[in-house]
């Protein structure tokens, strides 16, 4: 019986890349993809997406709203390598070249429910002032060879980055069979936990 003893657990995430705060930039679009460990496999939904270009709102918030839906389901046998969503935001520079405006990554939430995440974004810096100038002039800013780099810790020490803005994501998470496999992602049960009781 598959129901009795499942061999995988499922993680379903839907939600959206809601909006972003990039005070200096406009007309941005974003890409997302997932980075996950070897024991993970996507079973449904899109693993990658590229959004529409959005312009700043005219009000004081100057929000860049995409409302770009995410809907993906993973299956896994091991929570190690829990999926991360990697976001990269692009937009035109002064000369109209498409340059990267920010990279960011965050783990998908562990616990079922609705979660809102605001990810700070960053971009790699040029190695020298001169290169910075030329890259600005030529419209070829330094980029990661692969946006997925931001989801891993290895090799980051050789890079320098600059913080850029924020992207807000909304996740609705549903898990299946995690408890059956012995993983408890729920919030800590405070019942029975005796804290210090002051008089």
């Amino acid at each position, binding site marked *: 019986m598959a129901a009795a003893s499942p061999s995988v657990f499922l993680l379903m995430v839907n939600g959206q890349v809601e909006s972003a705060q990039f005070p200096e930039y406009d007309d941005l679009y974003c890409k997302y993809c997932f980075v996950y460990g070897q024991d993970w496999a996507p079973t449904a939904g899109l693993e990658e997406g590229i959004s529409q270009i959005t312009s700043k709102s005219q009000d004081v918030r100057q929000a860049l709203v995409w409302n770009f839906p995410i809907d993906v389901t993973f299956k896994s046998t*091991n929570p*190690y390598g829990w999926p991360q969503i990697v976001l990269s935001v692009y937009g035109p520079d002064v000369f109209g070249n498409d340059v990267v405006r920010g990279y960011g990554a965050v783990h998908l939430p562990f616990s079922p429910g609705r979660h809102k995440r605001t990810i700070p974004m960053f971009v790699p810096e040029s190695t020298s002032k001169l290169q910075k100038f030329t890259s600005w002039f030529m419209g070829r800013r330094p980029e990661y060879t*692969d946006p997925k780099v931001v989801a891993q810790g290895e090799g980051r020490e050789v890079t320098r980055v600059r913080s850029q803005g924020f992207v807000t994501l909304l996740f609705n998470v549903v898990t299946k069979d995690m408890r059956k496999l012995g993983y408890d992602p729920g919030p800590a049960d405070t019942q029975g936990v005796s804290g210090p009781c002051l008089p």
Partner: protein
Amino acid sequence: MNPKEEKVKIITEEFIENDEVADGRRKKTSKVQRQRGKKQTLTTGPEEMVLEKSHLGNQQDPMQEEPETHLVSMPSRQGPRSLPPIPSASRTGFAEFSMRERMREKLQAARSKAESVLLQEIPTPQPRRLRRPSEKESETEFGTESGKEVRRTQPEDDSQSYSRVKFDNSVRKIKSKPQTPPGFPSAEEAYNFFTFNFDPEPEELEEKPKAKNRERSNQEEEGEEEEPPIQEGDEEELLSGKDAEDFLLGLDQTTDDFLEVRPADYESVHVRLQMEEEALFIPSRLTVPTYRKLPENVQPRFLEDEGLYIGARPEVTCTNQNIMENRLLAQDPEKKWFGDDGRVLALPNPIKPYPTRPPVLTAGQSIKEELETLYKKAVKYIHRSQHMIGSGDPPGNFQLDIDIAGLIFTHHPCFSREHVLAAKLAQLYNQYLARQQRNKAKFLTDKLQALRHAVEFGLNPEKPHQSLDTTQKTINEYKSEIWQTRKLRDAEQEKDRTLLKTIIKVWKEMKSLREFQRFTNTPLKLVLRKEKVDQKADEEAFEAEIQAEISELLEEHTEEYEQKMEEYRTSYQHWKAWKKAQRAKKKKKKHAAEEHPDEEIEEPYPEEEPVKPIPPDPPDRPVIEQQVRERAAQSRRKPGEPVLVPELSLAGSMTPNDQCPRVEVLRREDVKRRSVYLKVLFNHKEVSRTVSRQLGADFRVHFGQIFNLQILNWPESLTLQVYETIGLSSTTLLAEVFLPIPETTVVTGRAPIEEVEFSSNQHVTLDHEGVGSGVPFSFEADGSNQLILMTSGKVSHSVAWAIGENGIPLIPPLSQQSIGFRSALKRADAISSVGTSGLADMKKLAKWAAESKLDPNDPNNAPLMQLILIATSGESYVPDFFRLEQLQQEFNFISDEELNRSKRFRLLRLRSQEVPEFRNYKQIPVYDREIMEKVFQDYEKRLRDRNVIETKDNIDAHRAIVAKYLQQVRESVINRFLIAKHHFLLADLIVEEEVPNISILGLSLFKLAEQKRPLRPRRRGRKKVTAQNLSDGDIKVLVNVIRAYDIPLWLSENLCFPSIEGAWSGGRCKFQKPSRSSRTFREKHPASPSTHSPTHSADYPLGQRENEWEAGTTPPAREQKVHDSNGLPGEEPSSVQLASSVRRHLARPTSQLSVAELASCRAYLFTVPGRALLCRAPNGDYSTASLQSVKDDVFINIFDEVMYDITEDDRERESGIHTRIERHWLGCVKIPFSTIYFQARIDGTFKINIPPVLLGYSKERHIVERGFDSGQSLSEGSYITLFITIEPQLVPGESVREKEDEKLLQATEKFRADCALKFPDRQCLTTVIDLSGKTVFVTRYLRPLNPPQELLNMYPNNAQATAELVARYVSLIPFLPDTISFAGVCDLWSTSDVWFNIQPYDSPLRINFDVTKPKLWKPFFSRSLPYPGLPSVQPEELIYQRTDKAAAAELQDRIEKILKEKIMDWRPRHLTRWNRYCTSTLRHFLPLLEKSQGEDVEDDHRAELQKQLGDYRFSGFPLHMPYSEVKPLIEAVYSTGVHNIDVPNVEFALAVYIHPYPKNVLSVWIYVASLIRNR
């Protein structure tokens, strides 16, 4: 303030006014006039009006129109005013009338005036309230005190708009009901009737008070001056006031007559209160005494005191509780509501102090909301707990009384030497007194006496009831007791005596000091009183004592002696026995020695000679006596010697100042300058300090102060700080004295004065007689015998709890005091008090539990109690050893055993260790049972076989060893790469444009001017992708076959349909291009538009056009018909699918094209099947390391496809075509994948490896006048032009740079950079990676080596032949295609130097190899960098062994057998027949081929074959390879596709020949042929 009261006041004012008027006190009128005038002037000021408006509203009585309100303030100042007016209904007499008249006039005047004033005024609100509060207060007082008036006016509160009518009405009702009957209007009433507007006029009413109040405020300013006259006539006014009231009431009564319209609905307050009292029950707020709550004669019983657990009661305020209790008592006297303790029954408080439900966070909440600050009222825990404790008592503070009596310095810097001695003496004397008080010596002496008596009794058998044993035992005990007591007594006596001696000694010292210094500054005086003793009795007692002692000692000694004697006897017996034996032995020996004198030496050495025991001395009485007497003389008073009793008194006289030396005077003055005070610190906070007192000459300070500390908490600490002030300047902290906190039993009055010592570590050196502190000084003249004293002293104090007024000690409650301030926290949390480690220590925990007085019955504590119980009862094992990381077990996820046993964890671990087999294992199953055992088999096998050399595949042992070695080398290199993989460079992570130099800028500028669509487009560079980011199926190898020429031609028919097949070793797909073979075809590109896809047709203006290789633009090969290669049996399905998909894609109608078209046959791609990598690289691992280790080759096979018409019947020819296609292998090009990987792309013309004999084909050279590459047309063999690349472009892994000299490496870098600048396309290899993955200079690998002598001897005369032979030999040396394991293929090298080709051509054929020409070759080593003479890694000389011919023959047979089996395997559906005859023919033929090195044998060979196999149609070819392993041979045979012929009567022939060369270099020839019998 209450408007009612206000009004009342005003009414009374009116009375006064009227009264005054009535009394004819005209003196006021002038004032009134003046007031009026003032009012006129002030009307413009708006503030007054506002006052009135805001406060009085519109409820002013119209009576107050009167302007003379200047006495308004009077009631507040005049006592009598507050008295209630006497009701005087009967007194409305004659005077009333005249009064009324006057009144009326006045009213009228005032009214008109007020109205006129109002007309002028415009009220502007501006609050002015400064005065109001005081007025209000006075009014309140007035109102409440005159209860009658209050009552009278109460009903009038009801409505906001007061009508005078109503007021009057009510007044009449109360006051003057029995008076004038209604219907008889008085003059006043009549007047009112006609003049008054009875309707309430709010506006007017509003305005008037304003005017009035304005006046009042004015008046208040001047009130002071005006009042005195009024106050003089106090009595009068009081009386007149009453009169006036009467008058007023009378007046009202008259108006009343007209107001009978509505009956009054007033209800007396009395009545109402009475009614309320009947109807309502208001429970008292007072505490209910306990006896009322309990049944009679029942004492309250407190369960908690009896040890039962009672939870915390819910919190209810005292008042509410009292109300509730009162109510319950009143309503339900059954008293079932109360418990045994007299309190309302209650369940334990269900409210937990912390939330048990997780807070629900609504997603809509923003962070700001969650961070919102909530105001929470501060809660005083202490007070609340006090409420709980003393429910009956008022929560009072507790009090601690600290009595500081005084301070004595036992040492002080200002002490003179004499003082030091005096202090010492005083101390000794105190000690003496203390000892005297205890008198331990006497006590012990008495005890000794008693014990002796007891022993005496015990010895006398006068107690028959006691058994002898017991007695003996008791006596023994007594004796030991006596012995101990005597020892103690002796010690005590000695101490006493020593002390006395010391006292006397110190006193003597002091006396001598006084004499020496010739002055006395301490009043200390020791008197030794002698007490006469009776000499005889004393002596007797002394003697008796000594005698007793002696006898006892003697007894003890005798016992001891007995014991020793016993020991002695036994040992003596032993010794005797031994001696005897010895003697016997000796005798024997002697005897023996006589017989065998030589053996004497061999006598065993006596083990150990027992010493002859010495008998113990018997106890000697005189000796003992001597000892006893000596000791007695030392420690005891001699008999007859008088008892000395020292008495210390302060009676001595001190030398006055003028007789003292200067230093002493200075010292005394210094002492006087010093003063001392104490600070009292409670819980480390200063709460008070004593007065500063001067230090006395005797170094005593008397304070005698008592500090009453009002406290809330149980004290944590109580400290006194001693401060010393010298003169006016500095204050120094001498010491801190910690006072003990008194027991609860210690209350004021009962506390003894105690002394607490203190000492300071300050160092003081003084320049006068004072000895200082902390510095050495001496009593001796020579300064010897130094001693150092520190400032020290004693504080005498007493601390006690105060007693309250009712005799209850003001002590904090027990719950607090037991643990102190931190009790609550401690009690709540065991961890916080004993620490985490304490939890493991059961003893500590139990101790804590006992200390914190945990309620053992509280269910909350149950688990803890249980734990402690088990721990203390010893049921659980508490280790007494120390253990490091005792909690480690808790953190262990799983035990090590289980970890090793579990297949899943093993898999996970192996994967994280990046073991090749598991590196890319995906989705490791959750359960062990789902993991197949075979997963580990390969890995385990590899581990096992690491050192085992298998010979199954590798035929000869030598090869096997080499293969093993290579395998190990590869592994180690891969491991190095794995490490290097985790070492990232910036370029691995970030793509960054390089800083453009001028040439690139110029180039980019030039680019702008470039044509958008050049006629001959160039390939653009692509973005490089690091291999780590790839996933399965990402890599494609793109192969573009541009052209091939000089393909062998089919002889019999003039047709050639060459097809090309690309093969990934394993899977393959092939593309055939049927074309009419002809060397005559010269038409360029017939471009049949019908078959062209329109989108692409424009793109092929020329046949040889090179294309972009990107997938999207790869054009489908034109006019190609794809033949599915059935693939290998058991081939991976992925490649089959791929082939079919390509076929689908490319399926086009065939059209006849020429050979020239073959040149334009182009572009097909095939994907690297992911599974193809499986055999060597782990699945799906596209990391640099594994890609580099891919050994697979790309085969480009060229086939000729021959169509045979097999239509049997000519008649059918019209309706159907039945042909068979046979494909004949013509040759192949083999390109290793690693080459593609490292080169990124391969673009060039390759010589097709065509077998030396191709039966049925001619290799005739044709002069093809192709203009584009005339040079190649002259070359031998067939050629194919290919472009191969990988999609996406992969970055070859960087190696670890080390080993070589840094300078040299830099030079190589520079050299490379220089060369690359000039010829960016040319490869320049200066460094290579050696076996250990290190970079070494390339010339280390380049070295001339001697060829095998055997080969040199073969053609001794023909140098050319020898060279060819050697070259052939070299070509046969097996090598591995992967450049990791071996030195890289370098295209440019010399013997020891390195040059770079700077000629215009890079084709090897055109290179001028004369390196001495600097124009053509750029040397690496120049004068600036001379050749450092690097040692080569190659051996100096190779030694060549002869290869075993027998082994070669054996191998030959084996290979043949294997290959035959394989061919049969590849044809599973068909019968494979072997033509033995042909095979033997071929076998004979192969050695010839070897000898001729595959040249110039074709024609003869063909003829011979034709002769022998005349009736067969024969197609076949010999393959020639160097031998390293069997596998490549099989692959080569397979790739020829010989087995694909499915003609039913086909026969095969296969022959293998191996020619051995020295050093196990083998040349393998395989001849494969298929024969079809011609009918």
